[in-house]
């Protein structure tokens, strides 16, 4: 089963990390990424730009283009992974491992129903 692991964190807090702190978190995450990749479990990974750069298109009779993220919440979606595991428990374990490398916030594990890797993306 493929799972999306969605990374949530308070953007205000992450924005207060110094470059050194941010680099340290990314370096710890890179170790986890490498282990998952070596095990053949890791698909695409994305870190998103801040939600201040986001625009939301809300569907209705006329689509409405709104500034900002879809939902104003305490913690924002900052990035996501696509992973592939035989069991749900393994997916949870991967999320826990990522969480140890990047404390605070939360990782949401969500099974994927349709996956098209695409070819044109960077």
């Amino acid at each position, binding site marked *: 089963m493929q799972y999306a692991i969605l990374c949530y964190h*308070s*953007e*205000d*807090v*992450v*924005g*207060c*990390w110094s470059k050194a*702190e941010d680099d*340290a*978190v990314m370096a710890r995450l890179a170790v986890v990424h490498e282990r998952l990749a070596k095990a053949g479990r890791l698909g695409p990974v994305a870190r998103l*730009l*801040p*939600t*201040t*750069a986001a*625009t939301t298109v809300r569907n209705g009779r006329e689509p409405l*283009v*709104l*500034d*900002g993220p879809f939902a*104003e919440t*305490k913690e924002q979606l900052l990035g996501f992974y696509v992973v592939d595991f035989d069991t749900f428990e393994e997916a949870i374990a991967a999320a826990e491992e990522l969480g140890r490398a*990047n*404390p*605070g916030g939360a990782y949401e594990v969500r099974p994927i129903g349709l996956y098209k890797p695409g070819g044109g993306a960077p």
Partner: protein
Amino acid sequence: MTDLAWIEAALTAARPQVVGALLRYFRDLDTAEDAFQDASLRALNNWPKNGPPRDPAAWLILVGRNAAIDATRRRAKQQALPDEAVLSDLGDAEAAIAERLDGADYRDDVLRLMFICCHPDLPPTQQIALALRIVAGLTVPQIARAFLVSEAAMEQRITRAKARVAGAGVPFEAPGAAERAERLGAVAAMLYLVFNEGYSAGAAEADRRRPLCDEAIRLARLLIRLFPSEPEIMGLTALMLLQHARSPARYDADGAIVLLDDQDRRLWSGRMIAEGLALIDKAIRHRLPGPYQVQAAIAALHARAARPEDTDWAEIDLLYGALERMQPSPVVTLNRAVAVSKVRGAEAALAMIEPLEGRLAGYFHFFGVKGAFLMRLGRAAEAREAFGRAIALAGSAEEAAHIRQHLDRLMAEGAGGGGR
């Protein structure tokens, strides 16, 4: 990241909202800051034991408010402090505050806190110092280091600024729409001052002053989150990101200035550029142009050019023309002349800036640009004179050294009798 580092980041992140709310309660900046300090100490003690609260800002406001009320009572009646356990039991009260944190009150709290740093009586250096201290939460030693002054001098500068703000009376009523827009405009200008204080530093101070740029961008992002549909705030943030993205390429290993055309563009921060471009794209959709958006659009054209020769100078010329109409200023015209020199040649550009000499007689960049135009036209003697005046007006050793390079080249060419 350790728990402690996480808590410190959370405290810094919550600070504008918390101090802003406490300022509304107590109507006194020192009381609000002391209360925040008190709440932060309790957080450092409490959060590692009980885990971080669901909403750190709400927790800090509640604890800070209680602490300040207690302190007032204690001073009045010498009453005992309530038990720490009582204070820590915040359950429902925190949830109630958290709900209201999304409301307009809190948005205006943060804006008010930033706005009191923009008082027109405060000279720019005091506005910047005050904003770094009370909004960004930098310590006095940190700010003193950025400004290259002693801690005592900085302490005094901040104290004086605070006294002036308190004497002027803080506007506590909720602002109307027009007033809110006015405050946003003043705050945007103040944030750009903070940014430029960091950005205009020479190579020697660049590292020490980088936090000023980072803080200005962080606070601008906060403003966007609070006021998500203000195209000028998006423009300002984009402008700062696009300029800051070039920081790693602005000085060479010896600390000499590297001009835009000569910068190694691979050193530019791709992430900051991507964010800046996204913001300017968003802003332009509003079709409410303003000076920050235009300046960001100009910076975006530089950022989008993979090589200097790919730069769309004709469009930059047009954008500077738009900026001249919005904000007529000889400095804007001077910048436009650089674009004109690329599109229509140095002759046209020189004709454009010559009338500005009276008003820009004390401006380093005027003579640097004038000298460069003259040099390109082969008028070496006049170029030398312009560069000489630029060196006399240079604001930093790097600026002077940069102009001296041009002079050396002119001398070499003069001696060799030929150009390169």
